């Protein structure tokens, strides 16, 4: 079990930052990292340690996706209770999940750097593809395996993310 401990130690901080980028909340990010670690430990501790990085990433990204889904459902239910909402209002709810991000980021974490803020504003899939390729340094093929999608989708997400990042940074720097 020492090898599992060593592996988790190498990824825990970066996993937390990845989850916090997606959620903008320390506690939520810790919950996601906890879920990911436990799932890996329960289901894959007997697997080949060489497979752990990709397995862990896949679990982590799925946990983040689940978190997004739950947030959307919660937001929709909350609005449903308060309003007889239109489709337009539903879209506002969906956007609101991400719209909170920059402000919370500045207030809660006192993060510096426009790049980090721009990254937080990316749609979930683009953010995942961008982080996995650029920061975690996975290949397109590995990223596709982790994200359970085609390599073409990864390339599209990554390209759009890079474009969006450049555009957001231009706006921020003006």
């Amino acid at each position, binding site marked *: *079990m020492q090898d*599992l*401990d060593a592996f*988790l*130690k190498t990824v*825990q*901080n*970066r996993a*937390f*930052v990845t989850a916090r980028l997606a959620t903008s909340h*320390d506690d939520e990010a*810790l919950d996601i*990292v*906890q879920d990911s*670690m*436990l799932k*890996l*430990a*329960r289901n894959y*501790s*007997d697997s080949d340690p060489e497979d752990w990085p990709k397995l862990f990433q896949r679990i982590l990204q799925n946990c983040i996706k689940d978190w997004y889904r739950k947030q959307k459902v919660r937001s929709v239910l909350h609005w449903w209770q308060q309003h007889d909402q239109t489709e337009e209002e539903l879209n506002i709810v969906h956007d609101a999940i991400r719209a909170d991000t920059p402000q919370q980021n500045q207030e809660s974490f006192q*993060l510096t*750097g426009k*790049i*980090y803020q721009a*990254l937080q504003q990316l749609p979930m899939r683009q953010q995942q593809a961008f*982080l996995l390729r*650029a*920061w975690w340094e996975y290949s397109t093929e590995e990223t596709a395996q982790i994200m359970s999608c085609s390599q073409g989708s990864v390339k599209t997400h990554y390209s759009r993310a*890079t474009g969006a*990042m*450049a555009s957001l*940074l231009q706006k921020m720097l003006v």
Partner: protein
Amino acid sequence: MSNNDDQMIKQLKQQLDQEASQLKPETVNALDKLRREAVQEAEKTRSKGFQWNYWSYAPALAASVLVVMLLISTNTNDNAVVDVPIQISEIQSSEIQPSGFEIAVMNEDMELLEEDVEFYLWLAEESVSG
């Protein structure tokens, strides 16, 4: 990918690495605690798995023992039947008294042989008269 993109990605990596290496102490402590819990969970799962595997072998082991026992008993019976003439010759030559079980088997074989002879005789008579 343009040079600007490369520069942006390089800066982003630096910033994220910095973020990951400069987490608040309470966050690092929380992550260490989560990691230890996960490792304990893996140990539990592994020991449960071992127990499950151990018990899963029990029926196979029991079946193997049963098969071996059956083979031994069958073999013993076969030997008893097959070995009869040898034992008889041995008994006759060495004048060692056979055991009760061996005598019973011998007598039974003799009775069967007598019955068979009678049957074949009757069959021969029937075929001649028919």
